[in-house]
């Protein structure tokens, strides 16, 4: 009995070793990756316009806001949390930036506006984190509260009205394509994704997040500072949501307190489609990138096919359910 167990253990170990080399970067995301490839293939075959440079660049432009938020959400979900406040924090940060920078209000200049916006967004995240680690609120509740508070604060700044018109250099961040293809905002998203992928894969702190999500008590008993890392993760998620708000402002040349409504759900969907587990400990930036791309490509493709936005919502809902169900079945089969 014991001998045969050991033999199969070793065999499983050897198999895992070969598998690990293949998918080091997209660990555990083969399923979503295949889904994305199939989706792209289908759209290439059914439309003339999907596989054109112009359209692909469009998709990248359209996913920047979602992509940047999803990086932060990946960290939060990795440690076994959830952040429902990202859409509201996005709006609050954008409003703060507009208020500080816009000539009609404080007129302190864009750099000051951006910095203050990011600080406010980070504070929102930190407060959510403290509510989770110190007050011991469930993350769902803590960030639900923050979702309401941040949205209300965003509305209070201008009493609900939007702020329009930013300097040309600012709006061109999302429009001008450097080297013929890359806008600054898309570049920012890609650089952030790479930085956080490296962080999660190769930094001790990043690896520690996997320990916290796998079992907070094991992590704590291993000497990992669970509370401070969790606070830091929520703060980072807030900063990234704020950054997404600034990117959105550049894309729209305006900020409004009602922006980002429901974005938290898209963000969570992207992370989960990318193979992350809501119970924590499982997930990667590579997977999240695929999840974000699936949502972006799906929206784009359905637009190209002339499918109504209402049906798009239905389709995206079905994709979320399918993606997570396949993942669950696969895990059970193992």
């Amino acid at each position, binding site marked *: 009995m014991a001998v045969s167990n050991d033999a199969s253990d070793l065999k499983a170990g050897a198999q895992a070793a070969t598998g690990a080399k293949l998918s080091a970067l997209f660990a555990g995301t083969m399923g979503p990756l295949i889904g994305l490839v199939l989706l792209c293939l289908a759209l290439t075959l059914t439309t003339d316009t999907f596989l054109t440079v112009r359209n692909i660049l469009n998709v990248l432009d359209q996913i920047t806001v979602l992509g940047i938020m999803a990086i932060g959400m990946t960290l939060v979900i990795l440690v076994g949390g959830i952040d429902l406040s990202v859409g509201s924090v996005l709006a609050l940060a954008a409003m703060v930036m507009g208020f500080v920078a816009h000539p009609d209000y404080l007129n302190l200049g864009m750099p000051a506006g951006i910095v203050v916006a990011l600080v406010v967004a980070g504070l929102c995240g930190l407060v959510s984190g403290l509510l989770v680690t110190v007050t011991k609120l469930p993350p769902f509740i803590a960030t639900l509260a923050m979702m309401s508070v941040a949205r209300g604060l965003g509305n209070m700044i201008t009493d609900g009205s939007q702020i329009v018109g930013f300097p040309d250099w600012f709006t061109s961040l999302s429009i001008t394509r450097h080297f013929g293809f890359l806008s600054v905002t898309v570049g920012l998203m890609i650089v952030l994704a790479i930085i956080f992928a490296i962080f999660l894969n*190769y930094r001790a702190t990043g690896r520690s997040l996997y320990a916290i999500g796998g079992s907070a008590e094991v992590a704590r008993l291993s000497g990992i500072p669970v509370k401070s890392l969790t606070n830091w993760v929520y703060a980072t998620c807030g900063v990234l949501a704020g950054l997404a708000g600034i990117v959105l402002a550049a894309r729209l040349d305006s900020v409004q307190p009602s922006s980002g409504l429901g974005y938290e759900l898209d963000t969570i969907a992207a992370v989960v489609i990318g193979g992350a587990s809501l119970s924590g400990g499982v997930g990667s930036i590579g997977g999240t990138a695929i999840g974000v791309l699936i949502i972006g490509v799906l929206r784009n493709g359905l637009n190209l096919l002339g499918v109504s936005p209402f049906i798009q919502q239905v389709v995206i809902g079905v994709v979320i359910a399918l993606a997570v169900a396949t993942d669950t079945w696969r895990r059970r089969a193992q």
Partner: protein
Amino acid sequence: MPPVPHHGGSPHNGLFVNALCKSYGPVQVLADASFEVRPGEVVALLGENGAGKSTLSNIIAGSTKPDAGTIIWRGNPYSPASPAAAIDAGVGMIHQELKLLPDLSVAENVYVGRLPMRGGRIDRAAMNARASAQLKRLGLDVSPERKVRTLRIAAQQQVEIAKALTLNAELLIFDEPTAALGGEETELLFKQIRKLKAEGMSFIYISHRLDEIAEIADRVVVMRDGRIVARHERADIPVRAIVEQMVGRSVERMFPQLSPPGDQTLLEVENLSSPEKSFNNVNFSVRAGEILGIAGLIGAGRTELVRAIAGADPISSGSVRVAGKPVHLNGPAAAIKAGVVLVPEDRKAQGVVLDQTIGENLAFGNFDHVAPKGWVFPKAVQKFAEAGISRLGVKGKPNQAVSKLSGGNQQKVIIAKWVARPPKVFILDEPTRGIDVGARAAIYDVIADLARSGMAVVVVSSDLEEVLGLSHRVLVLSRGRQRGILDRSEASNVAVMELATS
């Protein structure tokens, strides 16, 4: 032991348990267990942790099914398919962990599942009145509308008893009812048991507190290794005699040869107390190369004590010094830095991240070693893991998920995680719990090696043989108090159990 004479011998309307057997896989937890409970008497069921008391009472209460054997209850064959069926037959069990709904009222708890209805609505007035009557019968002055959460443990237990009474229970099984009670509360419980006994109710009474047996029980049944080893017709038996029967002669086991300890004192614990009073005023020291066993019954405060020393739980007073230097116990990280490591009691919940690889699990807790500048490279983790795996003889590969390993190998992964530091004080809480008997010897060898390499080792175990076989000295705890430290030469089953049950 001769089998219990049933029917013919002393015909009565009580409980006859005949030759019950139960195995989990290859482990026989109950072998040929027979005893009887007469109407209106209290039978004490005694034995060490794991002797089979719980299995036996779970079978009688309907939550476990036996592999073989029969039960006769009130003259009829009795084999309850569920706790509900047992309750219908008049058999109830009061568990050590009370099974109440804390946010419902006392009356609702008493009548849960069969709330009195009138006109399609709950008849609260009737429910409260009836619950009140039952509570009065127990001599308890508690409003039936009070939320159970707001009651003290002792009062909550009374609610459970009241619930059993309304279910017309005629046999009540108590599993360690006094473990969480103070002296006065225990007295009240005993008074109630005597009263109900006079009304004809029978009781099976499981307890580790041998001193209270003589007071409450009419007869005593002693279990060991799944067997009933003694039945006494009276309860005023010397504690020592019962203890001897409880520990008995166990199967010889292979324990490694211990090397003599060194001279340097590595761990000094002074007047350590916990905020919850789970342990009080504990003092001991452990030298380099020495293994100190900590023995005691469940709830004696052993786990709480070692967790506090490892920084996992807070302390209220006292101090810990490692190699002469005081340790500021404000978290596991500080303790680990000072050289104190813990292999926790619950391997799967506290020891390993099951879904992650051996390599990852070894790296958690060793990032300062694997990643001196904060960079974790897979090759470094692999190398580190291979070293740990070969040092401890783990049967697995670095990138294999820990969930696929046997319990013994998982335990070795946890030990390997700490060995590399290397620590000065190595604490192991229940190192062989849930591990096959065959794989235990390997763990024992590892523990002896830890000591031989110059660490101070502390081993907590519910398995008395294990503590005695592995330790240079044995510290015995009972109800959070240190009852003594025995040298290897004077530490016998009986000596330890006598202290542990005091």
